[in-house]
């Protein structure tokens, strides 16, 4: 009797192994029109099913080898159609409306996700996972992200908020305003965003406003586009700014890390380290 059970057990276990190892019914052909979407697809283990990406999709490194179908603002409808995709995933943008509508018109399945916030990132991971039949991986991915985020936040326990400004461009001077992903990173990272009340999501700031707000930390991501000495020289004439006085102006070139997506914990830790470096000096 026990032998029989053992045999059945072995068969059942064998079947389970087979099921788990079996590839999904058929590999999909997916076109991604934004870097955050491409990152999400790779994080879900579907990188091999991506047959087209936007020009800006640079992460992970494998994504660079995938055929480009245009910028995410002006994708080439024709090149996308020729990829014969089962699914096209896009982010909403007024600039890509016409091409995205054209894709829908020709009968392609188009999923539009809006990962512009932390909440939006969770939703778009779930939506993408559902659309490609990887719900379980989607849930697991978000759990990993949430756990890592909680780890960073644990380090910031009881910290005093520092007045923080994130700058994305100098001419004009544009800051991260209320409601954008960077604003959430500042708040989660133990800062308070001085540009939150400047009006709009990407407010144009006057230097006067910045001087009056007296940020203690300035994270300047414009060095992605400008030369670093230039960016440093931009802030030097204002020693009355606490951030300049205390040497807390950080020039950060890897703006791509700060995009909403599976690298949310890394993005959060980067911002949090700038605002509260003292909390990251030793491993707990």
């Amino acid at each position, binding site marked *: 009797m026990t032998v029989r059970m053992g045999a059945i057990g072995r068969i059942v276990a064998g079947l389970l192994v087979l099921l788990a190892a079996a590839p999904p019914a058929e590999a999909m052909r997916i076109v991604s029109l934004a870097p955050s979407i491409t990152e999400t697809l790779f994080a879900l283990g579907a990188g091999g099913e991506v047959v087209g990406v936007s020009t800006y999709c640079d992460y992970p490194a494998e994504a660079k080898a995938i055929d480009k179908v245009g910028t995410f603002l*002006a994708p080439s*409808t*024709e090149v996308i*159609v*020729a990829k014969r995709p089962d699914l096209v995933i896009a982010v*909403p*943008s007024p600039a890509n*409306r016409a091409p995205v509508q*054209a894709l829908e018109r020709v009968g392609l399945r188009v999923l539009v996700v809006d990962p512009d916030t932390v909440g939006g990132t969770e939703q778009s991971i779930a939506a993408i996972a559902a659309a490609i039949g990887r719900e379980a991986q989607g849930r697991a991915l978000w759990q990993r992200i949430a756990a890592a985020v909680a780890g960073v936040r644990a380090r910031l326990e009881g910290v005093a908020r520092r007045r923080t400004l994130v700058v994305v461009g100098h001419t004009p001077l544009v800051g991260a305003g209320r409601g954008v992903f960077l604003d959430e990173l500042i708040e989660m990272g133990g800062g308070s965003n001085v540009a939150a009340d400047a009006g*709009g999501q990407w407010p144009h700031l006057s230097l006067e406003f910045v001087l009056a707000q007296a940020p203690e930390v300035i994270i300047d991501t414009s060095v992605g586009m400008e030369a670093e000495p230039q960016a440093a020289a931009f802030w030097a004439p204002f020693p009355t700014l606490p951030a300049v006085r205390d040497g807390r102006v950080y020039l950060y070139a890897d703006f791509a890390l700060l995009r909403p997506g599976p690298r949310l914990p890394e993005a959060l830790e980067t911002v949090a380290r700038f605002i509260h470096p003292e909390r990251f000096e030793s491993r707990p």
Partner: protein
Amino acid sequence: MSVSTVDTVRYLTPRRFTGVAAALSLAAAVTVVATALIGPESIDLRAAVRGTSVDHVILFQIRLPRILLGLVVGGALGVAGAALQALLRNPLAEPHIIGVSGGAALGGVLTMLLVGRTPVTELSLQPLGSFAGALLATALLVRLGTLRGHLHPYTLLLAGVVCNAVAGALIMFLNSIADFYQAHGIIFWLMGSLATQSYALVGVVGLYVAGGLAVLGWQARTLNVLSLGDEEAWHLGVDVDRARRIAFAGSALLVGAVVAVSGMIGFVGLIVPHVARLLLGSDNRLLLPASFLAGGMALVWADTVARTALGATELPVGVITAMCGGPFFVWLLRRQAR
């Protein structure tokens, strides 16, 4: 170098009209077929006509509507340019230079910000808003260019340059108070593009353009008389003010409709009628239809370069028309001055 003194005055006979119209129509048909076969993806023609393949979708739902839109938009710009050049007796007149496009763009941006941009407004309010902007700009220009009851083309031209600058400033102002996404949309729209649209949209724009063409076609003979000068026209029994108002309104309708759908595409309205006049003479009864067909072809070819040159990366077609049109125009000017 006023238009009326162009020395290639040839009589327009029905035979000549038919000949030129047939030749240009044939060239336009060849353009449509040839450019439909060009694109970043190579397509299999036999598969394309079969009806269910990807090649079919690319040919008939992506390339063809875009090419037809290019014909309509380029044609409308060509005709509007030809009409304005005749109205102002100046070959420099062009919707973009004299501020009609600026007014249309301002009207379009205002519409976009006030009512938002949905598939429905794109077909209805957007062209109307741009038309209203173009019409108001034109009316203002005519008012500013009229001194003591006489229209002074040069004054109007200069006023147009100023109007254009002011419209540009107002658009920048609206752009800076619009939210990030809207601002982005405005910039991309202004850059001028013929992104693939539905046949429905091509049809609606075609209707507006047909209206403008009908008005100007009806006025073609009067335009001929007007280009002789106000006094001469008056002596020949033309109600100068009325005729001019009608022709300006027709041009505004053309410009408003195409700016609404494709943004600011420059130089087509300047160069196409200019070249057409050099080759065919300045009789507007021939010049207007010729400018329509030639303008359409010029823009379709420019757009073919825009969507093909860099593979998957599309260029704004306005970039191509300006890069080809600018040097060409300078060459033309210097050649004429010699």
